[in-house]
């Protein structure tokens, strides 16, 4: 992983997540900001896939378990599309909250991926 890119990912996902949870609880339906935020999170995750494939070849291998790393990355990739789909089937304030919960989960998973990449396994 690349340190600054990881921080960008975590910050974007956290900001989108908090924004969507607050907007949803305040009664806002999903709109350009929240759905666009989820799309941005997914794009960043796809870039992360490329980084995760290239980095070991470029002399930046993970310190921890590669299997566990990919389990988190694939899981994180699945969350935004499914959350947006499930949220938009019924458009209400709760759809916005759903996207917020999903975005915060991605933030946690990316952080965990960073720990796996940089910390040797026990």
């Amino acid at each position, binding site marked *: 992983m690349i340190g600054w890119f990881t921080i960008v990912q975590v910050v974007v996902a956290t900001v989108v997540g908090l924004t969507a949870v607050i*907007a949803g609880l*305040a*009664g*806002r*339906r*999903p*709109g*350009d*900001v*929240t759905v666009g935020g989820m799309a941005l999170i997914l794009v960043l995750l796809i870039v992360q896939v490329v980084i995760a494939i290239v980095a070991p070849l470029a002399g930046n291998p993970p310190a921890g*378990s590669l*299997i*566990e790393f990919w*389990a*988190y990355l694939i*899981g994180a990739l*699945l*969350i935004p599309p*499914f*959350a947006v789909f*499930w*949220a938009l089937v*019924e458009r*209400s*304030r*709760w*759809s*916005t*909250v*759903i996207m917020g*919960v*999903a975005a915060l*989960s991605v933030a946690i998973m990316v952080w965990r991926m960073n720990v796996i990449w940089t910390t040797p396994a026990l």
Partner: protein
Amino acid sequence: MSSLGTSAPTRMTGIGRVLVVVYAIMALAATGRSAVQILEDWQNAPLAYALSAAAAVVYILATVALVKSDASGWYTIAWIAISFELVGVIVVGTLSLTHPDLFSHDATVWSGYGYGYFWVPLVLPFVGMWWLVTHRHGAPVYEPLAAADEGSSW
């Protein structure tokens, strides 16, 4: 207020959909974790890892059962799965504190009452049971529409 008596085509509306998403994410987290544990390290702690896998299966079952809880069979399955989770998080959470050697090798989703997951595994069964009680089969479902303050999107 004219919308109060109308029956929705599906029960899983509003805040219930948020509940399903949190269950689905927990199912994903538990499945991923147990898959990695079993693939990489099965021989070192088969009991703890089998428990992880069982937790994952029950989270998946609870997610599906909540979505389909409109049908009485799935409603019962949802109760069983969520009760199993509550017992699991309390028993494993307590054991992980009183007998840490049992789980010293690697944690499960339920270790320390799910502290590694911000205690979501401990809170979730109660929210799930609240949902099932308030949406039991045949019970009148009151979903405040809050249409007035949902006029704008963001």
